[in-house]
């Protein structure tokens, strides 16, 4: 096994992160924006694992476990917020969340 160049993995992570950023900027359905955030988390995790393998150090994998736990907490609160917003406004379109606009 000869291995795969490090830059391929980094390039893949850059592409996935950019796609996640595109989703946050383009889509207006709050749930899809949330999923795009998960995509960006995921590309960061891929980097952690890649460098964990490259440096033969386990610490990167431990960090991924922490990211997983934090992402789970974030999703729980975020989805509860979204349900609350949907109950009060009847929509989760981001453009309609403009109550504070003067």
């Amino acid at each position, binding site marked *: 096994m000869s291995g*795969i*160049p490090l*830059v391929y993995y980094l390039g893949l992570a850059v592409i996935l992160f950019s796609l996640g950023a595109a989703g946050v900027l383009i889509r207006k359905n709050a749930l899809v924006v949330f999923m795009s955030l998960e*995509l960006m988390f995921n590309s960061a995790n891929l980097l952690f694992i890649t460098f964990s393998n490259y440096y033969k150090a386990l610490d990167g*994998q431990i960090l991924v476990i922490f990211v997983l*736990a934090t992402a789970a907490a974030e999703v*729980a609160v975020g989805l*509860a917020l979204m349900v609350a917003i949907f109950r009060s406004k009847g929509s989760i379109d981001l453009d309609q969340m403009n109550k504070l606009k003067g």
Partner: protein
Amino acid sequence: MTAELILFLIVALTAIGAAVAMLMSRNTVYSALFLILNFLAVAVFYLILGAPFIALAQITVYAGAIMILFLFVIMMLGAERLKELDPVKWQRPAAIAITLALAAEGTYIVFSKLNPSYVVESFSGNLADPVSIGTLLFDKYALPFEVTSLILLAAVIGAVVLSKAEKKESEQ
């Protein structure tokens, strides 16, 4: 092309294709399912990179628990066919331009600053058996571990409070 590179390309194309399909699909349920496909592809990368424990945690926690929670909320709200209002005229082109700039910048930095002869070994033995992960987690990273448990506790309380307060208001 070695078999390794072909495997990498297939899984990478699956991951990127699933991400693009997630962005494009009008139906939110399809978006969630494509995101699960993307998570599975990335889990295969974790396996290739010698992190079987993280790969299975990814499948159970992300593709399992978190995405099922997403699907549950989508179906509870009936948001799978949300009408998207007319976007602000310049929003889409501006977003695509910014994203392309981000991708170009990242790719430029990666490919110009790093020596392409650096190689990541695939299937490099048992770098991460659960025993060594557990030892490291409860020894060197014991304090962050406890902090994470506090974060999870706060999230649970927050989720309960958020959905409960709304209920009280609607009763009044």
